[in-house]
């Protein structure tokens, strides 16, 4: 039987290898860094990669990782779980503040992503207020480059909001495959910049822009999500006025990283957009702490 050489590892690969792929490299890929395509405690909740056949519910796979946190959120699995009008189908992602579920809104019979605060009914007032600020800020934005917010609600002490379900993965998972060609990177960042400009024009800054917060839909178009730290430019919230650093350092401007929250404005997002562009070309952020 004719063998060929694997371009990845140089091993001989039999013609009847699984899907004609090198078994050694397939196993290497199986050992691969699951965390790189799943959320970790260092990431905010972000919509991540759905199974490629996610058009049907029967192939939905919840994330393998459970990063812990208070178990005050509805489990999903073999039992049907409802949260208000939403049937929770699977857990998509879990971060420091929230859990994101794939859900079906029964009344409108549509698939949505539902983000719920992790601490549930025991959340602090500050957590609840920040959560609602996020929802309020994003709900007022209507742009093709921004994941839309549908509804904000509370169910038995659990605060949540529903948003558009993007059948794709994040820019972070895309770049984990390797750097992008400069032209492709520039086109993506151009669209991200237009979306952010729109948000700024409407008085909203994001403050945590990073590749993991940019989803790529099935047509390859970027959509900014997770306005978890957003605030209105004209808002009077003092939630982050205590010097508490919120955000992801690798993509933060110096003033934000040093906790000078009073100085954070639209330019913070501009810095982050630049850091994203940088990341896409060599495959790593400009600064790694």
């Amino acid at each position, binding site marked *: 039987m004719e063998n060929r050489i694997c371009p*990845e590892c140089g*091993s001989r690969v039999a013609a*009847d290898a*699984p899907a004609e792929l090198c*078994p050694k490299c397939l196993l290497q890929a199986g*050992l691969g860094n699951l965390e790189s395509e799943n959320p970790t405690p260092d990431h905010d909740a972000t919509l991540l990669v759905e199974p490629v056949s996610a058009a049907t519910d029967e192939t939905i*796979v919840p994330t393998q990782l459970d990063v812990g946190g208070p178990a005050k959120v509805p489990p999903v699995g073999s039992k049907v779980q409802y949260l208000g009008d939403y049937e929770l189908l699977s857990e998509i992602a879990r971060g420091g503040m929230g859990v994101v579920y794939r859900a079906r809104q029964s009344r409108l019979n549509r698939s949505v992503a539902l983000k719920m605060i992790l601490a549930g009914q025991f959340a602090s007032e500050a957590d609840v207020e920040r959560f609602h600020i996020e929802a309020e800020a994003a709900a007022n934005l209507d742009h093709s480059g921004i994941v839309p917010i549908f509804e904000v609600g509370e169910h038995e002490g659990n605060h949540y909001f529903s948003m558009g379900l993007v059948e794709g993965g994040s820019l972070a998972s895309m770049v*984990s495959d390797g750097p992008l060609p400069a032209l492709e990177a520039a086109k993506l960042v151009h669209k991200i910049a237009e979306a952010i400009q729109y948000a700024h024009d409407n008085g909203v800054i994001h403050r945590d822009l990073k590749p993991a917060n940019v989803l790529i839909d099935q047509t390859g178009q970027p959509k900014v999500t997770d306005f978890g730290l957003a605030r209105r430019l004209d808002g009077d919230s003092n939630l982050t006025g205590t010097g508490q650093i919120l955000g992801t350092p690798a993509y933060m401007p110096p003033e934000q990283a040093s906790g000078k929250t009073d100085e954070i404005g639209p330019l913070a997002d501009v810095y982050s957009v630049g850091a994203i562009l940088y990341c896409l070309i060599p495959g790593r952020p400009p600064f790694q702490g």
Partner: protein
Amino acid sequence: MIHNESDSERNPARDFATTQWSVVLAAGNRQDASSSRALEQLCRAYWPPLYAYVRRRVTGIHEAQDLTQAFFERLLEKDYLADAAPERGRFRAFLITAFKHFLANEWDRQKALKRGGGVRRLSLDFDSEKVAGGIETVDSTTPDQIYERQWTLTLLDRVMQRLQRELERAGRGAEFSRLKHFIIGQSGESYARAAADIGVSEPAARMTASRMRQRYRGILRDEIAQTVASPDDIDDEIQHMFSIFAN
């Protein structure tokens, strides 16, 4: 080759406790219908490694086929689970241990029995190119090494066929064919060219490949989960199989 869609394939979110090997182990010596069915499904999936093993142990093809067939009839009829108790953690280890036990102690007696007449038989496709090819191409290794190697190939083949079926059901079979190589890397391949071939943008092709890779990992873990007693064993199994090919 026979492929059976497990419960977890239809709904991977189900508890680990419902995997095939854990169902068999949980039933123990008092096998019920569901555990018998689970054992039969496992046997249908993983007989090629045993056949590869015995092909190296005996000279005649027909003798190897008879032994393989007889073993599975025996396995499905008689309690071998208790005999292989120390190896019960993983179906891979249990199967080869039970087969060796069969070859050492029961083959001669089994040969004298006339099979049929109500004995449960598995329909095994000994002419499968996958099975024959996998054996012929390995000629300098021990029977145990052949078994381990063929086990891994059988499992990976199931994983890739599941992934392909899922994509084909979603009407994306062409994307699977063109992008599957990106599951293992991108040496010698260009996303731009692949994207052009299937008529999508390069970012879309990258994203699809990334999703395929993630789904591949999920299916791989699910298939392994069907053969081990604990989810803690999954990573060890991948490591073990990798070491077979790395060496």
